[in-house]
């Protein structure tokens, strides 16, 4: 069984991103970049399936500028077997990423596509579902557990009311939630080995996909600031303030 794992290069989750002073975009100068945390969980899940003997080959794919080869190498160091880089400069919207991934899916015919539920930069939460629609595959979004069976996969999903279990025919798409697993760290020998693993590069033209713009960002701004609060001395004062000043309790 083959697994395709999609990974995205994003600003490291520890970086507090700010709007540029002219409001044109966020300031990404000299910030640390990393693999999107949800994508890391996706790689880990594929590696665990391979260790369990369910998956025989893991292909890591990333769409973006040349920098994202770093994140493909990270995925290779974590246990993916080979990489595919679809080189596109500038921002690529979820629908275009989904179209590019569809082309890779057609080329690779994976049984499982595992990807993050959202990236922590755009917070769109779209690409996996869009790939599902374009390929006709079923989707197990926000997965907290997966069990691969014969021709199908059972997915436990984190939904608003609790947990939902669904069954999908293979091939299928899984998008990962936080509690699916805890990703490992890449060991130094594996990081060295990853440098020798194969990595192919394609352009959108080679995949016959036109990268289009549907939604443009005209400006960014910081969110409204909350006015500074006060420290209360004790519970009695807290209750008094809530009752008589904020008037949120009776």
């Amino acid at each position, binding site marked *: 069984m083959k697994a395709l794992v999609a990974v995205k290069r994003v600003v490291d989750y520890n970086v*507090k*991103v*700010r*709007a540029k002073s002219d409001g044109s975009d*966020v300031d990404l100068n000299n910030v640390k970049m990393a693999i999107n945390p949800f994508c890391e969980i996706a790689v880990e899940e594929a590696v665990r399936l391979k260790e369990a003997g369910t998956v025989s080959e893991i292909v890591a794919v990333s769409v973006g500028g040349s920098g994202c080869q770093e994140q493909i190498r990270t995925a290779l160091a974590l246990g993916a077997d080979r990489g595919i880089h679809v080189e596109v400069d500038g921002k690529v*919207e*979820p*629908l275009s990423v989904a179209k590019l991934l569809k082309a890779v899916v057609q080329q690779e015919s994976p049984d499982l596509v595992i990807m993050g539920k*959202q990236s*922590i*930069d755009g*917070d*769109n*939460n*779209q690409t996996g*579902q*869009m790939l*599902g*629609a*374009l390929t*006709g595959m*079923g*989707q197990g*979004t*926000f997965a*907290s557990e997966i069990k691969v069976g014969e021709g199908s996969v059972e997915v436990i*999903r*984190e*939904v*608003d*009311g*609790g*947990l*939902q*279990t*669904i069954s*999908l*025919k293979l091939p*299928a798409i899984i998008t990962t939630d*936080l509690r699916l697993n805890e990703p490992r760290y890449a060991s130094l020998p594996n990081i060295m080995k990853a440098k020798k693993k194969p990595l192919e590069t394609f352009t959108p033209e080679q995949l016959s996909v036109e990268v289009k713009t*549907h*939604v*443009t960002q005209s*400006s*960014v*701004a910081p*969110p409204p600031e*909350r*006015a500074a*609060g*006060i*420290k*209360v001395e004790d*519970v009695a004062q807290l*209750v008094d*303030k*809530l009752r008589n000043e*904020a008037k*949120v*309790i009776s």
Partner: protein
Amino acid sequence: MKTLVIAEHDNASLKIATLNAVAAAQALGGDIDILVAGAGCDGAAQAAAQVPGISKVICADNAAYEHQLAENISLLVAELGADYDNLLAASTANGKNFMPRVAALLDVGQISDILSVESADTFTRPIYAGNVIATVTSSDAKKVITVRTTAFDPAPAEGGAATVENCAAAHDAGVSAFIREEVAVSDRPELTAASVVISGGRGMQNGDNFSLLEGIADKLNAAIGASRAAVDAGFVPNDYQVGQTGKIVAPDLYIAVGISGAIQHLAGMKDSKVIVAINKDEDAPIFQVADYGLVADLFEALPALEAAL
């Protein structure tokens, strides 16, 4: 301009998130219809018909839609979408699940999680866990939008009398099946709809200690939430999680207990009207967003708070 709001419901009744989405549709203007897709969903459809200002309710009652499987619902919405300029759903776990499929089927982009409607094609939305608010413009003729429920006050639930039209379209993609659901049953208000929320974090130390929050929640008719750290540690189930990747809440009163205030958590609650933080670490970032901060040991403060209410 015509807008279709896809209802969030449990077949018997309408969820309040639908009314938040209707409010966003009203901000866009024009005619608004509501789609109720489910199985045995007449109750929800009748409730939708009572929302004032709705032109009609489309009721698609079919076994294929019973559990809101995205593969099936998206085919229905994409087909009905041919008649509309805008397709809106609340940005709930369910809306997030099927709407991007609809957008892809229609070959348009999706605008996720809008906070405001600036004009017919321009919206604001949070990016980078809400640390930045982006203004975005869609160039698609048909717009597929999910709505951040806390950003739009719910439209009234009653007073209207829209017609209910049955839709026979049956779409079963045949690639997915519902197996079971483990839904927490609680007498408390829903986390995303409660006017008071009290949440515990890693400082609670274990799941049993969440009982300290229950007495207070009972007195305030509050929902109980948790930080990601508390959920990851297994103190409480995932549906308690408030944050960037959990639930987004904006109650009148939010009480954060033993929560340090990671960006991830703040993204889910910082639009609350009044925020109270109880934490023994006076440097905890949660105090930067709290209207009232109490530096105290929660194991002493919580019983005292319960007694004082």
